[in-house]
Structure formats: structure tokens, C-alpha cells
């Protein structure tokens, strides 16, 4: 069972990457572009077959490794096209 994890900076935390992309897009003529935020996207094969178990495991992985709650939020999708939390 596959999981997709999005790790994004918390609102209020400076996002130099997003700021730089926004700046570059303006310079390229996309003047109407507003805020840009850049995050990480991780796809992984959980090796679980039960969605609930898979979610619990990925939740755990996020807490332990994939995200740092000091500055980041994460969201998890199990298998494809499932509604996000």
C-alpha cells in the first residue's frame, strides 16, 4: 500500500525557497502570482496491506523522521486519490 506525504513549512515560518520562486516567476512575467510555498513530497511503499495500519505507521514515520514539528506540518494520503486528512 502506497502512501504520499506532504511536508510543508508552518505558516509564519519564513520560506526562503518559496520567496525565491515567487520572485523568479515575477521576473519571468508571471506578475499576478501571489504567495508561493515550497515543500517536500515523499511517496513510499509502506509494505502494509491494511489502510489503517499503513496510516498509523506513516504517521509514526512523519513524527520520527520525515517532518520536524518545530517548523513543519505534514499530511498523509494512503493509496491513491484518497481524501486527505
Amino acid at each position, binding site marked *: 500500500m502506497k502512501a504520499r506525504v506532504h511536508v510543508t513549512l508552518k505558516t509564519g*515560518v519564513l520560506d526562503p525557497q518559496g520567496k525565491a520562486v515567487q520572485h523568479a516567476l515575477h521576473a519571468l512575467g508571471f506578475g499576478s502570482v501571489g504567495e508561493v510555498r515550497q515543500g517536500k513530497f515523499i511517496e513510499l511503499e509502506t509494505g502494509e496491506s491494511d489502510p489503517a495500519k499503513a496510516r498509523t505507521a506513516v504517521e509514526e514515520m512523519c513524527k520520527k523522521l520525515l517532518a520536524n*514539528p518545530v517548523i513543519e506540518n505534514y499530511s498523509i494520503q494512503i493509496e491513491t486519490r484518497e481524501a486527505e486528512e
Partner: protein
Amino acid sequence: MAESEITPELAAEHGLTAEEYARVLAIMGRAPNITELGIFSVMWSEHCSYKTSKKWLRTLPTEGPQVIQGPGENAGVIDIGDGLACIFKIESHNHPSFIEPYQGAATGVGGILRDVFTMGARPIANLNALRFGAPDHPKTRHLVAGVVAGIGGYGNCIGVPTVGGECQFHESYNGNILVNAMTVGIAPTDRIFYSAAAGIGNPVVYVGSKTGRDGIHGATMASAEFSEDSEEKRPTVQVGDPFTEKLLLEACLELMATDAIVAIQDMGAAGLTSSSVEMSSKGGVGIELDLGAVPRREEGMTPYEIMLSESQERMLMILRPGREDAARAVFEKWELDFAVIGRVTETGRLVLTENDATVADIPVAPLVENAPEYDRPWEPTPPSPEIAAGDVIAKPADEALLALLASPDHCGKGWIWHQYDHLVMNDTVIRPGGDAAVVRVQDTQKALAVTTDCTPRYCHADPVRGGAQAVAEAWRNLTATGARPLAATDNMNFGNPERPRVMGQFAGCIQGMGEACRALSFPIVSGNVSLYNETSGKGIHPTPVIGGVGLLDDAALAVGIGFTDPDLTILLVGETQGWLGCSAYLRELLGQEEGAPPPVDLDAELRNGDFTRMQILARRARACHDLSEGGLAVALAEMALAGGIGAEIAAPPGEIPLHAWLFGEDQARYLIATKNPAAVLADAEAAGIPLAAIGSTGGEALTLPGTAPISLTALREAHEGWLPGYMDGA
């Protein structure tokens, strides 16, 4: 924010004691509003006010003919001739790095860089002194990886070479790692910038990044002990933006080449608050700021948040009247925010307005001068017993050496410094890995030697001796490259000063440092204090890190530690008694951290060091290395590995047991490898310097007395294998 009622409880939540809050009421003549309370709280935090340490710091020597500016400005300034000054300082980012290692360490580097370029210097070298918990502590590996990546991430991007530092492990840092960053820069002596505001009516200008809600109360966090739930304090960590800092650096230096700037101050801890208060206090003037004009990243920020934000990559300047447009043009060229946000006044008050309403009004002088100052009770550290070498178990020398070289504290740290760009700027004459690094001073023949040092184990056993030893070792490291040590900066990392034992460690270390600095004419010109490095009642080992700077008049005379040729004679400068108390040998081989540390004879340091330097400058030393932890054997192995050439060493003189001869940590000693031993011996005899020829270089192995040769390959595996292996083995 709705105007909350100010109660003593709220004041207490802001870290103010009842007595301190009473003082606030007396200064204000009324209850402060929330913004004013916030300002008092951060200005009177340990981090900004030095309320605990001031009394002791005053005892350090800070003057000398080379000193242009001692402590009290953003960084210390010393004269290096040719119309140039060297500007440098060290600073800690311990707490944030524990919580978010990458960003905490990165923003630590960003902060110390700003302290140096705000004075007009182009940074030419960075160093970092790191202390982590026990290697087997579950958090350590992750912290090492993050901190090192963060330091590299910031310094590499901005393009300042990171050329030195240190890294040690000890369980006392399990809950409180230390990340101390040092920056060294160069400025013309006639273009040094200070922070005292002047000129009634002059514009106050904000430049750099926009202000966000990040890091509010970082200064107070740095002044509080950690508890188990310190996760709660998380949003106080900032994200670094080295690209913006690079632009800020170039823009500031460009504007500094004109006469537009009256005063300038970076916004570090406590942001706009401490920068505006310090500028007005030093200038004896008032400052009025229109907070509505402050560039910001987020909507709805309150005056409290704007004043306390610790957003990075920002500066505050006072300009000469009429220079606003010229200055604006420079910052706009570098695509940075620029805003006139206020003016200098004659009132002596910090007045903040928003939409024409006054939101804070504080008399600056009492805010600064009546800041609390404590003479906290302290207890001296009880002396540790002296340990006789004969009472220490002797292990086979080869085994002992290999074990020491493969131990966390004494292994090669290349895994770390290869992640740092140590070559950018094209001036790195001596790279990391030896004693001090050496970087050239552009447009001159000169070079600076730079180092950081401290042996916390010694400081723990005997703070006075340990403090003196840290200074002596920094001085020695500079000397071993051929440099003349000029001045130092210090980072005082300690536990909770409200415990008399900890306060006693602080007082003791300062005493020892002061004695050594005086004896070696090595004044302290800047520094930083980090207290409350304590978790659940467990404090760190006392760690007064010394950052040293020395000068070589001719960069070509610098020597490294590596053996350059076979058939060099190896000379040992200084006296060896075989002091094993508190040694690396005891700790790593016998698992004992005990005994008194080696005595520090400052006269011998001075004599032996001056002698060694003279030999280097007379081109008699092909390589030179000072002796420190691990003693003679470890120093020899490092010289052999650095040069890729082996050596053979004779048996110890007289009655010194072999393990004490090889691993004793007696101070004031150097190894010199020379083609011309007779000349050096003659000089030593004339000068009354203890000197002995102990062996010679050559071959592919290190041969210690009474053991089979240890191949360089085996030495290298031990020395270079531990850290990468540790970091890989998850």
C-alpha cells in the same frame, strides 16, 4: 492583540522576578503596557543583560596596544597593521540547535556573520565549536548530522570559508548540545562602524528581510533551563536565508564605502528591541519608531510581535541627513527591503508609534543602566586528587594509540569539515585538520591564524586550571603555525547559574582565563555567555570556548602539522613529567574521568611558545604541532598522517613510565620537525628552553618504543574511520 491587563503573573511569565517587575514599575512610574513589558523582559533576559555574568566578565583583561575595540560592541576589533583591522567574535546558538539542528545551527552562523559585517568587515573565515551528547545517546547522530549540514548550508552558500573549530562528545551534553560559531573579518581601520546613534533628527533606517512572527522570545528561551516539555517552545526557531544574507553583506559593504552611515547595528537576539535600545543608549539619545513603516511578512502583527520578532537577515542604521535616496538605491539594487522607520530624538526615550498613536514610551537610560545585576552565590569546585602515573594501568602502546585515535573526541573530524567549503575566497593557506587554520589577508603579505579551543573535562575537574588551559591551548595552536597570537573571544557555556556549584565553575573558569590572558598578553575583545544549559537538573560540563586570532607577517612562513620529508629530526619542546590525571588516556582506555588536570605554567607557555615561533619564523621547522589531549603519541600520529610519512621514536628518558611519556598531557609542549636540529638545539640551550631530539621521520609506519611498527594505513583507518562509520551506522 487586545491590550491584556499587566499583572505580576504576566510579568513572571515574561521571566521577570517580582523584584525586577517592581523595578520596571519604578522606572516607568506606571504599569507598562504589554509591548513595554515585552521590551523589558527581553532586555533584562540573561542573554541580553548579562545580569549574572557581568560582575565576572569585568575581571577579564580586554586591553592592549593591538586592541581598537574591546567588548561592548557587536564584535572586537584589533589592529593588524597596513591600515587594516581584524574584527571577530564567537556566539552560541545552543538551544535552537537542539530543537531544530539544521536551522538552529544555520541561523547561528548567520547571526555571527552579521555581528562582524555590521562593523564594516568583510568576513574571511568562520569557525565552529561543537559539543554533542554521548555517541550512543539516541539523539546524537541526528543532531550531529543536522548541525553540521546547517553550518555548512549557511557558510557555503554565503561564500565564507569555514576553516576551523572543534567537536567533542560527552554525556553531559545529552540534553544540551553546544553550537558556538565564530566569524573573523577584515576592515580598513578608518572605516569601522559602531552602533552609537547620533545626530538629532537623523533618519533611522531598516534594511534586509521583512519582519515575521518567527523567533519571538528567542532571547528569553536562551536564558531558561530546558524542561522535558521544551518541545512547547518550538516556534521560536527561525529559518535561515543565506542568500538574502549574502545580498545584505554586499549591500552593506557597498554603502559603507560611502559616508552615508552614522551608526549601524544588526538585529540579532531580541531583534528591533535590542538594536534600537542599544543604539540609543550608546549614543545617549532617544529614538522614535513608526512601527507601521516596518516591512513585514505577515498581516496583523502587533507592536509587541514586531518589537520582539527575531526574523533573521535584518539591520538597523542611522543615516546622515539627505542620504536616504543614495542608500535606498544601493539596497534596491540588491533587491532588499529598505524603509525609513523613524528618527533620532533628543528625548532619551524609546517612543514607538503606530497610526500616530503611541504604543510604547520608555526612558532608555534606566532601561539599560538599571538592568538587574546579580552577584550570585558560588561555591568553589572541590579539588580532584592528583594521580601518579605509576598508579595508572599501562596498556600496550600501539593498542592504546589506535584506540585513542579511533575515539569520538580524538578521531579525525574530516567528515565534518569536508562538508564545509573551506577554500572559497582563495586564501586558505592552512586548511582544517591541524592546529590553527591560516588564511591570507588580501592585498597584503599577511595571514591570520584562527582557532577555537576548550577541554571541558579539565574545566569540570578544576575550573581555574581548565580556564587557563583553554586560553593556553588556543594561544599554542596559533603559535604552532608561526603566528603571533593577538587576541581572543570567548563563549562561556555553563549550566544553571542559580546553583552555586555552577556559579563556582563560572567564576573559576573566568579566573583562570584572566590569569592566562594576562600572562600571555592575549586580551579578550569580545564574547558571549550561554547559561542554563541544563535539562532536568543535569548541567553540562563547564565549557568556556576560546576563539583565538594570531598574525603572520608573511603568509609564506606558515607551517602545518604534516611531516614534509623523510629524515627530519623530531624535537620536543617543553618539559614532560607524564601527567595522566584527567587525561584522554584515562577516559578512553580505562573509562575513568578523574584526577586533577595538568598544571598550567604560564611562564613556560610563554617561553616555550615564543621559542617555537622564533624557530618557525627562522624557517627551521618544516612542521610543527602543539601537544594536547592524547599527548605525544597522538600528536606524532597526526603529524605522520597529515604528511603521509612515518616516524620512529626513542625510548623515554629517565624514570618516566612509557605510557606516561607517550600519553601524558603536560602543557606548554610542541613538536618541531626539522632538517637542522643542531641550530635549534643550540638556540634552546642558549635560551634555557627544555628541548630533546626524540626521533626522526621516514617510512610508512609509526614506531613507538618497544612496539612493532604501526602502519600508516592502520593509523589512518583508526583515525579517519570512526566518525563516518558512526554517522553511517544508523
